[in-house]
């Protein structure tokens, strides 16, 4: 089948949104489909979103390929007669993040009109889709809530050759690999290290979205004298190094605030048979991790998190047991490429 994958990007910002498109394309090619990928730059600043939407709508994809798969918001506004949308998030700052500091538009009639414009466009473009999938239950629920549309949850698998992941040991450190940004709450994990009572260590790896946040974290570690227990590896990390840390860590931390999906760090932990520590308000991660089964779910506070780190350090057997459950969880949820591609290219294709 000839497939077009259209997604949007923010130049020089890597994240799950671009990986899901790339890995989906690779997996489809492995199954023999002819796939072309289009990554269209799209602004994040609300001021420029509306006019960029007009540009996106004008992209001439109609009439080419058997199916267009739209992935990252708002690629679904692209017109195609056989469009499927794998919806991974709204323009979150004006929907589920409205009541947070991330809103980015004024809390008045102007902001509400902006949100209403986007809601209308989402409704129109998603309704044009012959098939609508969400990457998680939480995104499905948001589509119900904000758009009154029903999406089929389809959990994205990890791309590439996953045989690279291995399990070497259950060592003495918690590993938190993720893009470094306030919403992922790496700082909370570091603050928790002030309250741990065991020799457990923390390794934080990831590229800061903005340099100042990286500096803020480095300053905090220095000011609190945590240098010997918190290992900051800020910047792009080679894949082998990340795989190695996953193989050796005690468990993986993934602490986003109200995340759209379980997140790739959870899947990487699963492939490495590691327990996952997450928070009760982390959103999609809770679809993968059940407290005490695939990892630990704690309240979003430094002390509770510290207690979870200590508990894993003191009970390595439990950490290992939860790691094995984490490994098995993917099969339970049907997270694999053959299933995913069949769904994406099936309905209406």
């Amino acid at each position, binding site marked *: 089948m000839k497939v077009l994958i259209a997604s949007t990007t923010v130049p020089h910002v890597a994240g799950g949104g671009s990986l899901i498109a790339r890995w989906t394309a690779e997996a489809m090619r492995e199954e023999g489909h002819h796939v072309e990928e289009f990554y269209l730059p799209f602004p994040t600043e609300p001021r420029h979103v509306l006019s960029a939407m007009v540009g996106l709508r004008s992209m001439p994809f109609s009439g080419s390929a058997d199916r267009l798969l739209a992935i990252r918001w708002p690629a679904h506004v692209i017109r195609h007669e056989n469009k499927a949308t794998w919806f991974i998030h709204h323009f979150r700052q004006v929907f589920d993040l409205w009541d947070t500091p991330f809103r980015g538009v004024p809390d008045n009639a102007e902001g509400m009109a*902006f949100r209403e414009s986007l809601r209308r466009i989402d409704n129109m473009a998603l309704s044009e889709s012959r098939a609508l999938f969400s990457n998680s239950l939480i995104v499905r629920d948001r589509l119900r809530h904000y758009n009154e549309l029903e999406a089929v949850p389809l959990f994205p698998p990890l791309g590439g050759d996953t045989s690279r992941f291995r399990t070497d040991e259950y060592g003495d450190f918690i590993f938190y690999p993720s893009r470094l940004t306030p919403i992922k709450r790496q700082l909370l994990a570091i603050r928790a290290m002030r309250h741990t009572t065991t020799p457990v260590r923390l390794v934080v790896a990831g590229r800061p979205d903005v340099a100042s946040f990286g500096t803020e974290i480095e300053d905090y570690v220095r000011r609190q004298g945590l240098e010997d227990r918190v290992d900051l590896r800020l910047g792009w990390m080679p894949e082998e190094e990340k795989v190695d840390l996953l193989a050796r860590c005690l468990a993986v931390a993934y602490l986003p605030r109200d995340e759209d999906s379980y997140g790739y760090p959870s899947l990487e932990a699963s492939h490495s048979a590691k327990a996952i520590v997450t928070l009760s308000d982390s959103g999609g991660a809770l679809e993968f991790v059940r407290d005490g089964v695939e990892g630990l779910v704690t309240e979003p506070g430094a002390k509770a998190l510290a207690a979870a780190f200590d508990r894993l350090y003191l009970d390595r057997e439990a950490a290992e047991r939860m790691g094995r459950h984490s490994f098995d969880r993917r099969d339970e949820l049907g997270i694999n490429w053959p299933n995913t591609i069949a769904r994406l290219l099936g309905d209406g294709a």
Partner: protein
Amino acid sequence: MRVAMLTPMAQDSAIADVMLQAVPDLAREWDLEVWYPAEPNPRPCPVPSRSFGALDSDALAELAEFDLVVYVLGDSPFHAAMLPFMRRIPGLVVLHDASITNLVRTAAVRDKSLDTVVREVEELHGEEAAEILRVGYAPGGPLKWLDFCSQVPLDQIALQRSLGAVVHSQWHARRVDGMSLGEITVAPLPVPTSRMREKSERARGPIDKALAALDPADLLVVTVGHVNANRLVDEIVSAAADLESERLHVWAVGHVESSTRAELRRRAVQLGLGDRFLLTGRVDDALLADVLERADIAVALRTPVLEGQSASVLTQMRAGLPAVVLNHGHYAELPDDAVVKVDPDNVRHGLVDALQRLARDPEERARRGEAARDYAGARNGSAYADAILVAAERALAARPMTVLAADLNRRLERIDLHRQPAVVDLVSDLAFELFDLA
């Protein structure tokens, strides 16, 4: 919310008067600052205020910091300094007049952009209209210029980049429909406060003598306001003469040019109305109050209609006078139990008929006068402010769309495609589809 309101504050500006009536209520909801065109003796203002002059980058930057800017526009030079700011920082426009031709022309001459405005008028209205605007004169007399202002109101210049508008009648709202990306809100214009002042102690002059000379049985018909060609004072004089009543007096109260004065006097004498027709010239508010108190009937005719609402007819209604108006423009919206509406295509006949009816029937005069007083009395600063607050909410809601329009235009302009109809149509179609702009 921080709001800047750019409005005249001159002592003799009726617009300043009505806007100030709304200010206390607006200030309860907003962090309001009033900006007024440089004025040596501004009216006192209950909120922080400052003057502004020609466009400068500091003032522009300060204005851009407000959450919303409200521009108060009328067709007078008081407002000319606002237009350059309005072009750069779109806001909510309170439009008092249905034509702002004089304002736009004055401002364009001042900032040397008349050629641009003339070109725009040529595209929309043709070469002849463009030439009239260029020279600022319409052959055929003052009424022709007023007709031109009505046909070429230039209100799109104020509204095309605006976040919405406040007007003061449904008729005006229909005229400007579609000119702004924002919404048009109809607000109840209050009656100017100074004109509601009660009778006061003051020096007595010739008008007082004329008032004193009226017999209690005499019937006084007044028309209030600048005696312009569109006020049809000559028709009022002719109709009064047709009634052949020695008790009927006609007074035109307001500024009058000497040439107009002479012509109207001559006509009144010709028609045998010489000693029962008076042109008072400009009067102060206290004297106006005295005249209205003595008057029996008000006549407020305008053709063409150039204002969005008539402060003078509201003033006469507030004084409890039955008013005779033409059944067009915003006058057609006045309550039927308070005013008598005359067919604008048959003014003389309708006017004679209306005056005759009211002259003969004091009960009808009293009944209509009471209804007129109630109607005008319900208009106040609070009600006006409420409507402006609603309009401001709507204006904020329109901002994303105005930003969109500006962005699209800039992007096309950058690649020199903003005047290519096929490209503009394509982009417009997409925007209309996405943003439901139809």
